[in-house]
């Protein structure tokens, strides 16, 4: 691997080999470091915000024309309500029918394009993945301000 140098008065070989040893060392070190620090499972997050009950908030008068959006997760169905209008989506084959819910949420979005807030209620025995699925469906319908009722 050494370089056969140029020099001397005679006609010598001017080709030189690149010294690959430091390059291989660098690559080996990099591979070891990257393998150790590699993240093989992509972990993301779904977020929700909650108001601090201890924080003092200014009293505000509720708007009588404001429509409250809520989605309720049960063990066998999902119920969505925009004010007094309620819709129920029974589970299909044991799985929540997210597509029908998204279609309804999109109609809400067309009617109230400035609204992003939804309150999410859930049955205590419903599985956690259904809550995440519901939040995912709300995110798909561009409802970004999801509040979860923990009671």
């Amino acid at each position, binding site marked *: 691997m050494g370089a056969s140098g140029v020099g001397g008065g005679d006609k010598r070989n001017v080709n030189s080999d690149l010294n*690959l040893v430091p*390059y*291989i060392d660098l*690559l*080996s070190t*990099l*591979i070891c470091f*990257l*393998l150790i*620090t*590699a*993240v*093989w*499972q*992509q*972990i*993301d*997050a*779904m*977020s*929700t*915000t*909650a*108001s*601090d*009950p*201890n924080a003092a908030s200014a009293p505000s008068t509720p708007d009588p024309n404001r429509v409250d959006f809520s989605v309720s*997760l049960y063990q066998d169905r999902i119920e969505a309500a925009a004010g007094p209008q309620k819709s129920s989506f029974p589970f299909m084959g044991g799985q929540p029918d997210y597509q029908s819910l998204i279609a309804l949420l999109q109609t809400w979005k067309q009617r109230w394009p400035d609204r*992003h807030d939804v309150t999410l209620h*859930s*049955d*205590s*025995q*419903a*599985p*956690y*993945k259904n*809550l*995440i*699925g519901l*939040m*995912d469906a*709300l*995110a*798909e319908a*561009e409802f*970004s*301000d*999801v509040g*979860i009722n*923990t*009671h």
Partner: protein
Amino acid sequence: MKRSKTVVKPGYHIRPKYDLEALRERRHGGGGNKFGVPELPLVSMIDMFTILVIFLLMNFSATGEIFFIPKELKLPEAKHSRPIESAPLITVTSGQVILETEQVGSNPVTLTENDINLPQLSRALRNMKEMALVERPDKPFKGQINIQADETTPLVYIKRVMQTCISEGWTGINFAVRGTGSGTETGVQ
């Protein structure tokens, strides 16, 4: 005239009968490489190393989150998730509630909505909040916390952890999920 004697290194003389001088020279680095010890094909090895480095660099995450996910815990999937941020992690398994690496509560088999008390978790969260306020008095407390749980966990176990977090001022709750989408920001806040 006096002849000077110089001491020379003794040569190969153990069994000169069987000595193959040319082969010996090649083995010790002299001569060409027509036969004898073959050279390692380094070019293909460097190619492989380079491809490996590029692949690993593409998967490299510089955000520094290290999540310990227990074997029995399978995170739910979500398409519209966003990259998780570094924050204290609460793990809810079938039997216990763990804050970072410390057990701060247990999950009984039967749990009603009235069993919301997690005093150890409350105390630990309070301490963490006080520490954060002491460490960064000039910055407002964000109250971000990450929760990870198995996808089949009944929501009552998650709710009581959430209630405890909210009551202690940790209102920015993030659920850890396995991202299956394009990884774009969803806007869920």
